[in-house]
């Protein structure tokens, strides 16, 4: 039987039989539909990528103010476009391991303070120059300079010196950091000729596509770079194009109308409708992103841990997951880490909705009157509804929440990280250390729960320097418990990325890091003939 299935799936891959017939024949052979489908997918992969065509994506997250300077990337469109024209030092592979790209090897001293990157031979920039250790060093230098305003500056500040030694770049850190290779996978750190010091926004790197069109907020395009060093793995379509479509309805209609082959950010509430469209496939996968209700631990009344605990226990997480994310996510447990991070401990007890216990802690806190919660549509999709659901679940515990709807315009400058209790979201980071360093140590600019704990800071620094993974995992578990039980974070749910592809898109693989296969969908997918 399996021989026959194999034969049939190869025929489909070769285009001699259509999918529907295949599934019918497979069912006749007594195979479940999902198994038959997976068989088909592996056959398609085995048949190999198809070269040629123009692959197009319609994405939310682009503005006319975007720049090609990787240091300034913030939203989805520059991020995705950067992955097409840029080449990284290292990257996170879909299975979570480290994938060596421009660096072919990374080694460290025993104390994790001195790191050596060995630069790969034979990689060429779009302008014909060869990628050298000097270019990599210059890139890292530029991103560690305050003047670059780089989004990676937070971690790059930890580098004390950058030296070139033949084909090697040697980094000496101020403090030991076992996670350094992971930090180098930050999407801002695209290697540019001379580090981009001669023109940060020239759009030249060593990625699979050369920039041909750059109209910020409208569209971006690239054509295949003939001398790409990994031509068998990436860069299958002749051209790629990103069209900026910030309106959710326009995005889905563009996919349905066949004007684009893939879109990002499908809203959970319309996923079931989109699923029914012939040819369209929903690509959802969990990641580190999460939706949060954040309290300032140093501002009354939230400086009282009993009140914080009461507010955590009064959150009906199941209902949030069910009604706000329509099941496209997972339950949160009031610390910002989930299974998509390395060294995650899955044995921490799940916090549940418990109005009685919440009422107990609320009484103990001695607080009276209502608690003001600020929210807005821009905090996360469905944030206003979520705040109202929360208001009702709090009422069951005898806590009065006053929901104040703030204008979306100015929310990130006037409310988030300023007001003591509001809704927000986090996209997550690639390692636990990055997440805690960005938002939970006392000195972090984005410490949006005002979690100022010297003992916790020390734990973060100690874990960062620990090279023994078992020990580190135990340390991260302790840190998670502290944030969960004493922090100002209410984390009801982790959201999934929901992308969608049209018919004819081949080569999709799940990648838990960011949307659209960690941004590589346009380079790694192909158009089936």
């Amino acid at each position, binding site marked *: 039987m399996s021989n026959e299935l194999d034969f049939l799936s190869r025929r489909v891959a070769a285009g001699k039989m259509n999918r529907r017939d295949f599934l019918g024949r497979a069912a006749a052979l007594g195979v479940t539909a999902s198994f038959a489908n997976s068989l088909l997918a592996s056959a398609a992969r085995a048949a190999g990528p198809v070269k040629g065509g123009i692959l197009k994506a319609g994405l939310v997250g682009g503005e006319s103010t975007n720049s090609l300077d990787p240091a300034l990337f913030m939203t989805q469109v520059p991020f995705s476009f950067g992955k097409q024209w840029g080449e990284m030092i290292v990257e996170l592979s879909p299975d979570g391991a480290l994938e060596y790209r421009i660096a072919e090897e990374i080694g460290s001293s025993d104390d994790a303070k001195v790191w050596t990157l060995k630069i790969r031979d034979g990689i060429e920039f779009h302008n014909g120059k060869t990628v050298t250790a000097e270019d990599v060093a210059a890139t890292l230098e530029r991103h560690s300079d305050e003047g670059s305003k780089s989004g990676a500056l937070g971690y790059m500040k930890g580098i004390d010196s950058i030296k070139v030694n033949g084909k090697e770049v040697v980094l000496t850190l101020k403090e030991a950091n076992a996670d350094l290779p992971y930090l180098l996978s930050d999407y801002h750190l695209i290697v540019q000729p001379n580090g981009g010091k001669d023109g940060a926004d020239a759009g030249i790197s060593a990625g699979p596509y050369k920039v041909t069109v750059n109209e910020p907020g409208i569209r971006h395009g690239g054509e295949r770079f003939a001398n790409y060093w990994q031509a068998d793995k990436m860069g299958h379509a002749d051209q790629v194009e990103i069209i900026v479509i910030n309106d959710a*309805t326009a995005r889905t*209609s563009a996919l349905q109308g066949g*004007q684009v082959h893939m879109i990002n950010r499908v809203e959970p509430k319309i996923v079931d409708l989109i699923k029914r469209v012939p040819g369209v496939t929903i690509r959802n996968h969990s990641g580190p992103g999460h939706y949060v209700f954040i309290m300032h631990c140093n501002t009354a009344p939230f400086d009282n841990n009993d009140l914080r605990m009461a507010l955590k226990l009064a959150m009906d997480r199941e209902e949030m997951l069910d009604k706000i994310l329509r099941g496209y996510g997972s339950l949160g447990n009031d610390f910002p880490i989930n299974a998509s991070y390395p060294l995650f401990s899955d044995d921490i007890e799940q916090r549940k909705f418990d109005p009685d216990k919440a009422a107990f802690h609320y009484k103990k806190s001695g607080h009276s009157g209502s608690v003001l919660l600020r929210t807005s549509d821009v905090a996360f999709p469905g944030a206003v509804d979520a705040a109202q659901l929360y208001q009702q679940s709090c009422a069951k515990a005898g806590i009065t929440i006053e929901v104040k709807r703030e204008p979306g315009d100015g929310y990130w400058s006037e409310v988030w990280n300023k007001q003591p209790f509001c809704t927000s979201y986090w996209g997550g980071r690639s390692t636990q250390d990055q997440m805690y360093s960005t938002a939970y140590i006392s000195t972090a600019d984005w410490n949006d729960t005002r979690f100022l704990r010297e003992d916790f800071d020390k734990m973060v620094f100690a874990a960062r320097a620990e090279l023994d993974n078992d020990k580190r995992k135990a340390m991260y578990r302790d840190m998670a418990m502290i944030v969960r039980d004493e922090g100002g974070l209410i984390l009801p749910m982790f959201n999934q990325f929901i992308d969608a592809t049209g018919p004819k898109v081949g080569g999709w693989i799940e990648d838990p890091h960011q949307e659209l296969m960690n941004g590589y969908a346009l380079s790694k997918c192909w158009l089936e003939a």
Partner: protein
Amino acid sequence: MSSPILTLVAQRIALGLLLLLAVSVLIFAGTQILPGDVAQSILGQSATPASLANLREELGLNDPAYIRYFRWLGGVVTGDLGTALSSRQDIATSIGGRLWNTLFLAFWAAVVSVPLAIILGLLAVRYRNGFVDKLISGLALASTSLPEFFIGYLLVYFFAVKMQWFPGISTVYDGMPFGERMAAIALPATALTLVVLAHMMRMTRAAILNVMQSAYVETAELKGLSAFDVIRKHAFPNAIAPIINVVMLNLAFLIVGVVVVEVIFVYPGMGQYLVDHVSKRDVPVVQAVGLIFAAVYIGLNIIADIAAIIANPRLRHPK
């Protein structure tokens, strides 16, 4: 010829300029009271007090508001709209392409909607109170009553998703072949046409019907002219002033009121440009776009006024 007509036209233009000046004050004041600080929003969350102070100094934000206003006004008068804070690009250059796109869409929407509205209006008068009149008025009013985003989505649903005649997203770019460009704007232009049609059509109908009550129309009918000739030769020329007025008003809408349609169809025009920069607190761009919109609106209204004056024989041929 120092006729009253020239004086009147000069008066209108002077009034328009005065109005524009008043609008510029309003725009400037409006952008001052937007929540958020410009320097803060450029530098982001991690701004230090020192870098904030430096940037405020550099941008001249420490000067009193009226000094900044006159500095800005001086620039605008000499054609210098300033540089965008977010991208450091010259505003006049980056607005150029966008403005052209908006005008292109407005032009084709007007080419379709204005003659269509006037012809439908004439037809409605010819067959007034009959089935044709009621059908035309009913359909036109229905299309106006629907919000433009709803019309937009309906068009996308039927013509882009179901039948796939036209693209649902109207991304246009430099060097795009003319045919493709026209296909791209087909749906947004249709949406705009449907939005403005009823207003012009109803106004044409009302203006002509008003004239139809006059004694000279009765005379024309009595001397045996056909119904269409009466409307064409006698009623229409005398009803032209209010029709021009409403046409101009709608042309202005086609240029300055298309933000929603541009967003739905992802059309790279002025509306989207404005929205992007409002959310980035890019005040110079917001001011520049606001002023251009105001100038277009006031300019078209002046043209309407002048056309109405010229269309009036009593003013054209003074005793």
